[in-house]
């Protein structure tokens, strides 16, 4: 047992007002290192092993769950945005040719492609067929050829709401994926935080709990030291909350027994001294020795 702590026995107040209550101090909590640390470290070590072992298991399962949930989220279909496409029969625009005075006047272009098999009109031939055809519009009032206006595909009326629904869904899925990832991280942080708090809390609690056992042992140890050097002075009570109350009662009985032994010795020897003095043997060397013994014993009880 370490001797760092000061005397645990309460000091009597000046003026005889009874013992001042001993105040627990954090400095004095570790008074029996071997016993206290052994029990505290066992508690802390066991909790750490449990937390780490089960924590790894929790994280493994949490990772699996997150992966499964993420896969499920990724597979969730979102409403598609309807495609808007130009008509497929439109050919590439061809720049118009200026009329060549040396060439014969071109035949008027038809407004639309003639159906197949009907291409046997004037000017038709193999060379004619290979020429790219340009769609034009003729303004009949001025007989001017104008390039045909581009065809605009019709826009569905619910396009806006479908686009919004699509992107809302996509964003929701992304948010769910992020929430799952955050959930996994939260589990990890909660585990680490709880583990650290648990270890620190248990260490403090373990030391405090074992201190309630080590305290009375320390106190008894101090009295034992006094008894070894022949001092059997008053034994004070334990502090409130201390354990080993029964053990301390045993100690007090033992201490009282030794005190009673001393008192019995003193009584017997004093009776002999008194009788010897009456018999005229008061100055006998043995009586002197007995007087010294009585003095020593009385002093030990002070």
């Amino acid at each position, binding site marked *: 047992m370490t001797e760092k702590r000061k005397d645990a026995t309460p000091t009597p107040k000046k003026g005889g007002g009874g013992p001042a209550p001993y105040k627990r101090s954090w400095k004095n909590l570790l008074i029996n290192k071997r016993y206290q640390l052994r029990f505290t470290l066992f508690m802390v070590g066991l909790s750490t092993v449990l937390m780490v072992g089960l924590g790894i298991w929790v994280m493994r399962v949490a990772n699996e769950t997150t992966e499964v949930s993420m896969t499920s989220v990724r597979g969730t279909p979102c409403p598609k945005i309807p495609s808007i496409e130009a008509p497929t029969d439109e050919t590439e625009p061809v720049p118009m040719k200026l009329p060549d005075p040396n060439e014969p006047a071109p035949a008027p272009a038809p407004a639309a492609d003639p159906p197949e098999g009907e291409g046997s009109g004037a000017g038709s031939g193999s060379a004619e067929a290979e020429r790219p055809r340009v769609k034009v519009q003729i303004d009949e009032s001025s007989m001017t050829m104008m390039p045909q206006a581009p065809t605009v595909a019709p826009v569905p009326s619910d396009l806006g709401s479908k686009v919004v629904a699509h992107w809302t869904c996509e964003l929701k899925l992304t948010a769910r994926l992020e929430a799952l990832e955050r959930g996994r991280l939260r589990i990890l942080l909660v585990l680490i935080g709880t583990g650290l708090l*648990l270890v620190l809390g248990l260490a403090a609690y373990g030391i405090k709990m074992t201190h309630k056992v080590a305290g009375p042992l320390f106190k008894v140890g101090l009295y034992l030291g006094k008894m070894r050097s022949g001092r059997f002075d008053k034994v004070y009570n334990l502090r409130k909350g201390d354990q080993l109350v029964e053990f301390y009662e045993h100690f007090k009985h033992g201490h009282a027994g030794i005190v009673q032994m001393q008192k*019995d010795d003193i009584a017997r020897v004093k009776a002999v001294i*008194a*009788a010897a003095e*009456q018999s005229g043997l008061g100055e006998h060397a043995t009586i002197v020795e007995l007087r010294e013994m009585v003095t020593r014993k009385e002093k030990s009880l002070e």
Partner: protein
Amino acid sequence: MSDPTAATPVGPRAGAPTPRPKYKRHLSNYLLDKKLQLRYVLVVTILSGIIAGALGFMIYQQRRAASESIERDLAALTQKDTSQDQFQEQIANDLQSEDQALVYKMVGVGLGLVIILSLYLILMTHKVAGPLFKVAMYFERMADGRLGVVTPLRKGDMLVDFFTSFKDMHDAVRARAKDDVVAMDKAAETLRAAKNQGDYRGEGHDKLIEALEALEKHVADRKGKLTDFPPRAA
């Protein structure tokens, strides 16, 4: 309860031919100080139970969440195909039974942990409660004025420093008591021989004789209490 003060066998001595039987630990003797031991055992066991229970619940919750996610996805995939209903049900049942098996496994491991831990902690705390019990018995003997020989602790006991401190005190008190007994015995003998040197007639003489007789009786009683404890029957 067996006497733990007899932890170490004492060899045969004069007047004590029967050797003291070796002390054996009994299962029933492991809870020497129920309050002290059970308090620590309960704190550690309940704490471990809470940690294991909470984390076990988390594990189960995560597993169940994964299983339910799989079940939901499977249901979504096969909702238009009635021929897959049985397959879907079978998968769901398999997942559920796997989760159930996990719960049983965790409960079993948890109970095993609690039982093993409790037993180990009782053994561990017994190594503290044992020395305290032994010292308490010596204190009770001291209360009767009996100051026999203190036997050492059993192997593996804790609180060795405290016990050494107690033993030193006990040996010192015993040695001092022995010296006192010798001194008182010698004084009684000397005074008995010297009583005729003084005024031996009258009341003083009778009183001295009476006091010496009382002292001799006291010394004899004290001598009896200073001898080692009688050996116990095997």
